[in-house]
């Protein structure tokens, strides 16, 4: 508590944390570095971070019968063009955006009115419904993936966007979080809105939604991060149809398609998929950490 700094202690703490940071950052460093270097440099672990960027020849390009001068390129160009040409990366990314956004929008459409009813309306059976929500919190969707898969298969929905989205449309966690948040909104605000002549629907979307923006933002971060990164569920319901694959699943396919020494394009694809969230995270770091903590702590 004494304001005098213990410089030795401070130095030791930084040393420990720095060592940890190096281990944590190692794969990110390798990912970026490999995505820039030529296969030879990767295999021999030479060339530092960016490699020498000597002109190399694209063998697939030669095989495709194109003139040799068109097939000579820098490793960085080769890696990234290969990533985009060998796999429908753009398609994967668009799928990812479509699926994550759809999930989040539907989750809010379902959860917000329910949370409002559970926190601010008095009706018969309210406690039972809330009990159901609490009970459902115990069921991780990943755990019941198999019966969900069977049900979707029975109605013929596997290998569709619907299969990717439907199981996540209900977020009991979202309902719980919103309800807890709405409990802190004063009843007077709602009564005032009723006095102003608003319908219950208008109250939900024009009064409660704006007050819930911070909680929604936190929940949005949680939801988007979880579903952009989710690999398990897409792996279960999408079998073979590349047009429907989300980024992690597409990356997995890319990996099993490639032969041994195509590390460069592989890492380029990985970089492209990992980078969007990482960049957004670094830009809005504080919000992300607060959001994840807020949703994490319930």
């Amino acid at each position, binding site marked *: *508590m*004494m*304001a*005098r700094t213990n410089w030795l202690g401070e130095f030791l703490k930084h040393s420990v944390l720095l060592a940890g940071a190096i281990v944590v950052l190692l794969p990110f460093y390798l990912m970026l570095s490999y995505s820039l270097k030529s296969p030879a440099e990767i295999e021999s672990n030479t060339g530092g971070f960016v490699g020498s960027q000597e002109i190399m020849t694209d063998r697939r390009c030669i095989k495709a019968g194109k003139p040799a001068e068109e097939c000579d390129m820098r490793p960085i160009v080769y890696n990234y063009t290969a990533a985009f040409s060998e796999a429908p990366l753009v398609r994967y990314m668009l799928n990812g955006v479509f699926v994550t956004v759809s999930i989040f929008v539907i989750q809010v459409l379902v959860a917000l009115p329910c949370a409002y009813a559970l926190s601010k309306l008095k009706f018969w059976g309210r406690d039972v419904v809330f009990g159901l929500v609490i009970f459902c919190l115990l069921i991780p969707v990943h755990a019941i993936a198999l019966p969900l898969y069977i049900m979707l298969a029975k109605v013929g929905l596997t290998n569709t966007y619907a299969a990717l989205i439907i199981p996540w449309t209900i977020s009991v966690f979202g309902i719980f979080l919103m309800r807890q948040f709405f409990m802190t909104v004063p009843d007077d605000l709602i009564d005032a809105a009723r006095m102003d002549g608003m319908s219950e629907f208008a109250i939900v979307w024009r009064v409660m939604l704006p007050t819930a923006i911070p909680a929604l933002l936190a929940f949005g971060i949680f939801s988007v991060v979880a579903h952009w990164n989710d690999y398990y569920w897409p792996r279960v319901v999408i079998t073979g149809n590349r047009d429907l694959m989300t980024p992690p699943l597409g990356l997995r396919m890319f990996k099993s398609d490639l032969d041994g020494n195509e590390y460069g394009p592989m890492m380029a694809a990985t970089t492209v998929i990992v980078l969007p969230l990482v960049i957004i995270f670094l830009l809005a770091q504080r919000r992300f950490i607060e959001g994840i903590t807020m949703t994490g702590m319930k």
Partner: protein
Amino acid sequence: MAGIVLRQVTKTYGTLRVLNGIDLDIADGEYLTLVGPSGCGKSTTLRIIAGLESQTTGDVEIDGRVVNEVRPSRRDLAMVFQSYALYPHLTVRQNLVTPLQLRDMNFWQRIPLLGYLAPGRRAKMSKIEDDVRKAAETLKIEPLLHRKPGQLSGGQRQRVALGRAMVRNPAAFLMDEPLSNLDAALRVHMRAELSELHRELGATFVYVTHDQAEALTMSDRMAVMMDGDILQLGPPDEVYEDPRDIRVAEFIGSPKMNILPGRGDSAGRITALGVAVEEALAVPSEGPLSVGFRPEHLHIQPADNGACFSGRLTYKENLGSDVFLHLAVEGIEGKAVIRAKPHEADFADVGEDVWFTGEVGMARVFGADGKRVALAEPQLMRKTS
């Protein structure tokens, strides 16, 4: 028991200076209050005494010993915090025992379970239990010893916090706004209890508050602090009657002192709001002045006798025994407040213009720099007038 001395203590955070050289001499057994608005540096001063923060320059002496480099726990002080800072996971008894264990037992004796095997633990523990029982008795918290802080009311927690300070029998008690979390009635009650406790223990109390009423009612001496300086240090009566600075005059007393803009002239005569005042300057000089009257020193007049201020009565605040008359007076911001007996103000109705005068000899005059200006002795006054 010990006196505490601060010598030219300053504190800066980066470029922000929060204490500008505090000198303070607290006598053994004294009840000294540091009072001031929030941000004036009173809490920082207390925490520097406690050792929770270190001063930028200057010395702190406790019982004649410079303690600048001494850890908080070795200064033989106890502190009562605003939030009480009781350990929520420990019972009241454990809360009281903890400081004694930390002080009196060695590392081995303090280890949970294993410590029971350490030699000498039993004797020390029974001595500690004795001390705790005594403190609990004094504060009447014996029935609470086995509860946790979460199960206590605000007043009970307050007592436990006092108890935790008391068990160590410290040289001095430091209290950081200890009553501010209590409701109004309990706060008034605890004021009396604290004063009683101080008398009983005979220990030095250093008490920080932003509530001038607490400072006036409880302390032997009070130090009024503003912007990192002690503006005035003295017994409550003296600070109230004889404020050395316009800021002190306005801060101490409720409702606060009425400040009327005025002027002095080269003959030493004083006017306030353009009306001549009986008092005169000891050292005549021309320039703007502020003339202060406490509400009880303004008197409402049924008619203008030529030497009256006037204002429109906007509100009569009836307290039963007294009435506060709020007046809108041209030339001053806010309202002037007059304290009167109910019958004295019978004739005045809200919305009417009324006349009032200041009591002779009760004007407190401040210069343009805010410092008190000396007035001529009353005999001289008569001569000049």
